[in-house]
């Protein structure tokens, strides 16, 4: 992989959106009802839009390839997304909980990027911030509805949170690239994002009647290219067309 910090930082940002966007796209036609089906695929579309901006920029920095080759032609160890976004769509509670944990991180991340010294990243942040705010509103509402709903929905949400909360720590574990980008005024300060994240999540957990488990953090090194067993299956699906028919276009 190209040994350029900004390039790696763009992959780190873009891969999270790509893999989560893919997980959400798997729900297309399978949402619990029409409205949520459309809502979740809309989230997916917004995330893919952001991915395109990150990867177009990454391809420009690399000086070769396109957004498509960045998205579709890397090996598993060259993807730098966190493990949270790889977690499967076990049930609707898992989908909402994963989304909420992510959205509460994504919104302050976008706000931080708006202040980036890098003009392109600042523009991506400004565009994404509005979308992230809308997503957070949606997932927060559903957290409350499920957590404070029926006995069954509460049980499922709590169980989803028990499973997923352990993966949230990785979002804030600063990698070398993130540290360097922060120091250069290009990337976000994860410490500050964590403060925002805690405020948002504690508030919503309280109104959803759920509590995060005190299990230790999951051992996760997605930012270093080590992934869960889900990742291979995800990539097989994402990459199939470009691998089978190189350079194919719609």
């Amino acid at each position, binding site marked *: 992989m190209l040994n350029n910090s900004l390039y790696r930082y763009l992959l780190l940002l873009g891969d999270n959106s790509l893999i989560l966007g893919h997980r959400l796209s798997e729900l297309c036609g399978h949402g619990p009802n*029409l*409205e949520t089906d*459309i*809502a979740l695929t*809309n*989230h997916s*579309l*917004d*995330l*893919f*839009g*952001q991915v*395109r*901006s990150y990867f177009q920029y990454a391809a420009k920095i690399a000086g070769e390839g396109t957004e498509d080759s960045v998205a579709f032609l890397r090996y598993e160890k060259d993807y730098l997304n966190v493990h949270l976004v790889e977690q499967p769509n076990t049930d609707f509670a898992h989908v909402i909980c994963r989304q909420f944990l992510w959205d509460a991180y994504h919104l302050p991340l976008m706000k931080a990027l708006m202040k980036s010294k890098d*003009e*392109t990243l*600042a*523009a*991506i942040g*400004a*565009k*994404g911030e*509005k*979308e992230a705010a*809308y997503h957070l*509103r*949606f997932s927060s509402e559903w957290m409350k509805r499920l957590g404070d709903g029926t006995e069954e929905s509460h049980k499922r949400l709590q169980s989803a949170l028990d499973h997923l909360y352990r993966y949230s720590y990785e979002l804030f574990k600063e990698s070398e690239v993130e540290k360097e980008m922060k120091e250069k005024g290009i990337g976000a300060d994860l410490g500050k994002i964590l403060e925002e994240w805690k405020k948002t999540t504690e508030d919503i957990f309280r109104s959803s009647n759920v509590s995060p488990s005190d299990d230790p953090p999951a051992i996760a090194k997605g930012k270093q290219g080590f992934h869960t067993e889900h990742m291979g299956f995800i990539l097989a699906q994402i990459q199939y067309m470009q691998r089978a028919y190189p350079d194919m276009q719609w």
Partner: protein
Amino acid sequence: MVIPQPADIAPEILAILETVHDPEVPVLTVMDMGIMRKVEQNGTHLTIHISPTYSGCPAMDTIADDLKTAFSEHGFTTDIELVLAPAWTTDDMSEAGKRKLEEYGIASPLEATADKEALMGEAHKVKCPRCGSTNTHLVSAFGSTACKAHFKCKDCLEPFDYFKCLK
């Protein structure tokens, strides 16, 4: 950057721009949408900068192709650049555009605070484009395209799209 107004664009170019429509909201031209950021002319070659409404708006590629086709029919070659800054907001949409939306059956965006209240289901402020009643309710915060939410009128009982305020 200031968003170019029709008066800033050469009449010959503007006339062609006004023939290119949004494929998902076909009553709106690219000028109505307010997605035009810059038009640079060098003889018969144009560089056109447009800004997406939403990051993932799938209409942008089609709009870019449609612009190329429309200009090539008038002897121009074009490069289309997608620019993210300044980010598009619903304020960029022209008044004529908002009127056309209503006539087409899509409620046009409210100002930001009212929009938030409407989408949180706290207030009935979105006006039904068919009967004009504000006795409407949110069916889904996400609609048929990234830019719309789905509403229903409780008076005339018709469902309709609402173009979300993006600011």
